[in-house]
């Protein structure tokens, strides 16, 4: 309407959070490690969405990547090797109001934690899962393509892949992943300057080995970012079959959102039913249910 613009919001928040509000201890990662950039992106996404630090939980397993909760000024859980996802699912199932981030590495997630990975994907709880992968060619693991495995899990809802050294793309994808209601699987190809420097460097030197996925429903980056990647492919993230085909094609590493289904059912919605009920209500409900079996 003329002058009456309902979307012209002047809503102000009671509290405002800066990047410092999400920054915890001084990061101890090696110089040149891709983890620094990922941490910065997580801080920025938290600040952009103004989520309360006390309502945020960072969960991790074991490995370099799993130091992330120490560097967040939020609640955190530095768990056991391969068990980041069960802890995160536990937190989310009882506290669906919390914003849960999971930081895990390729070994932590795809190897020792593989079983939990598959089931967490299936549960589709509202969790942002960042996999810091220093071995994209499977040097550490037996031949396994994490993208095709993830896309093959029933009830999968969000799958994306990025490289840590492209900040705009990294920020956009992590933002989309965080906004998604469900488990967002983001595989981040990460540089490790100490142990496997050659892997990241090879990709940086040969951008033609990567393929940027573009679509109006995918990730939006400007032309300056697009120019860095010689290969582009138009891909609709709602098309699971196409996503699987792209993931299986080993000639180029796809970057962007492979699959996005906002309507997949979420297990945390089911586990939170009745949470507002008191003990008496629960007893009454249980008695009512048991009455069905009364003779």
């Amino acid at each position, binding site marked *: *309407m*003329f*002058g009456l613009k309902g*979307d012209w919001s*002047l809503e102000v928040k009671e509290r*405002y959070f*800066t990047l*410092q509000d999400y920054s915890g201890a001084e990061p101890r990662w090696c110089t040149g490690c891709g983890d620094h950039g990922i941490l910065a992106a997580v801080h920025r996404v938290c600040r952009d969405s103004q989520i309360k630090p006390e309502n945020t939980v960072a969960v991790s397993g074991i490995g370099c990547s799993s130091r992330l909760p120490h560097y967040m000024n939020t609640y955190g859980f530095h768990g056991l090797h391969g068990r980041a996802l069960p802890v995160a699912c536990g937190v989310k199932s009882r506290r669906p109001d919390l914003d849960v981030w999971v930081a895990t590495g390729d070994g932590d997630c795809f190897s020792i934690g593989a079983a939990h990975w598959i089931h967490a994907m299936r549960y589709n709880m509202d969790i942002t899962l960042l996999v810091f992968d220093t071995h994209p060619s499977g040097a550490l693991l037996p031949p396994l393509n994490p993208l095709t495995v993830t896309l093959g899990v029933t009830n999968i809802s969000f799958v994306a892949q990025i490289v840590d050294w492209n900040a705009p793309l990294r920020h956009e994808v992590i933002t989309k992943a965080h906004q998604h209601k469900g488990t967002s699987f983001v595989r981040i190809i990460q540089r490790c300057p100490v142990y496997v420097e050659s892997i990241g460097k090879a990709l940086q030197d040969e951008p033609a080995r990567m393929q940027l996925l573009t679509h109006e429903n995918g990730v939006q980056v400007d032309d300056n970012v697009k120019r860095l990647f010689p290969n582009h492919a138009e891909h609709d993230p709602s098309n699971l079959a196409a996503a699987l085909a792209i993931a299986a094609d080993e000639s180029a590493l796809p970057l962007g959102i492979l699959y996005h289904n906002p309507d997949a059912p979420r297990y945390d919605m089911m586990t939170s039913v009745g949470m507002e009920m008191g003990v008496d209500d629960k007893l009454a409900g249980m008695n009512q249910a048991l009455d069905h079996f009364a003779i």
Partner: protein
Amino acid sequence: MKPVTENKQNASATPGTDGNAGKDIIDLLRRFHFGEPAATEHTAKPAGAMLPALLNPYRDASTIRYQYPLYLLPPDGAADDKLAKPVSEHFSDSLHEFAPEAEDARILKDNVAWLERFLRQKLDALDPVDANALFDDAAKALQKHLGLEQASQEQLDAHLERLKATIATGGQFLGYGPRVSLHLMVHAIRHRREHGREKFRQLVMRHIHGLQSLLDVEKAKSTGANEPGSVKSSVGPASRYFDTGALSGMLEQRTSGSVKMSAERRARVEHALKELQSWQDDAVAVRFVGQMQDPGFSKLPSIEVIDSDDPCTTAAEVFKRDAEGLARLFAAVRIAALEVDDSYDAAVHDSWFAGFDWQAFSNEEMQLQTPVVALVSANYLACDGLAPFSRLLGSRLPVHVFSWVAGFLCALDSNRASLHLINRGTQSKTKERLLDPWFVASAALESRAHPFILVNPDAGDHAAERVSFDGNPQAEKDWPVEKLEYRSADGELTEMDLVFTFADYALLMPALHGHFRMVPAGFESDDLVPVDQYLDLEEKLVNRQVPYIWGIDDQADEVGRIACAGICVS
């Protein structure tokens, strides 16, 4: 924004079009529509908090950004022709200028809405306030509210300083209130005056100097100018080095043969000079004539308020009085120009200046006159004031008549009487206002109840050229059409096109609620038609159909139909 829900709760209690109950309901509504008192008693009036469905999102204006408060640019600080701009626009433009990237001045950008809201709350006062002082308060309050750690605090301080630097000294913030139209008019007048007056001041000084030079030359021709005393004073301190008496004797012989100024011309020049020298700039920017119900306004500097029961007549007298004084001044200016050029021709100009009055003023001269504004009520114009108002219009005196019921600038440029009709966005007979006045005024415009109409006789020779409807929303359509998002009874998110008409605007006036009746929830009938479609009906169909609008109250959060009485749509 949360979508509202379609009300179908009682659909089973009121059968649809087929049942007898349905027929009774539509008969009852039809009888109400035609004004039958019994039907009026048996139907429910809308609740006091009922609003047209499209306006529901605006109940809490504090969360919605609109054009107010305004940043009024000082007359000398305006880099362009803009007199004012919305504070939100000014902040947004300035931030974009000194912090173009998304991450630049991020804390300030994220909290600029907080600043705007603070300013709006502080500007509940009726008058404009100094922008820089209020911005300082807002900046301090923002820092206190955020409670940032030191590095961020210093960063924010630096960005707030940069934003403050974009506010010119003398700039003001003006919130929306009952006096806003008068303040904007005074502001526009001050802007124009400032430039015109300065130019005129320089012109007067130039003519004073020119006339004085003429008289000095004339004095130099007189014998008195050659007397030893005059020679001595004209030479100055150097006179002690020579014999001024001897010099005087020499000069006396040289003056013979010079043509002296005629006595009439000398008197004319002296009179013009006196007139120019006695001119004092009027400190008053605008004179308001009428019953000023708001005593606070009259205490503002640069405003004179003249009490009168008959504002149109008094305003005309005040204008003539002022114009008389200015006519003498402007005549003196013109005479000075002619005399300095030595082109004054008594045979031609004497008669012209003898009849010189305001009607002979040039446009520039007319702009120098302090505007006179008659403040009148709509009732005055329609009753007792109609005759004096008509006389004022007939007189062609450029007096402004201001009634609260459009752009000032066109009228300020005009040398004719002008009438300003202003909607102040007030809701009649309501204990607690339902909507911010700015939204009510906007709704008046939106619904075409008070559309923008500008009639400018100077715009062209044909009536079509003189009348302008530019600025009305969706002017190409009969009525503005907007989308309403709501959740249907089945829970599905649905959109419908809603037309916003004068009947919707009437629902904003609780005093007019008697002309509306609630249609029972869930009741459907082919004989119920939206007001806009009703107005397009053929005459033979009008008697069957009942027009309705969509409304919503603050409690139910459900949209429902409201039938309109015939008087609303006839």
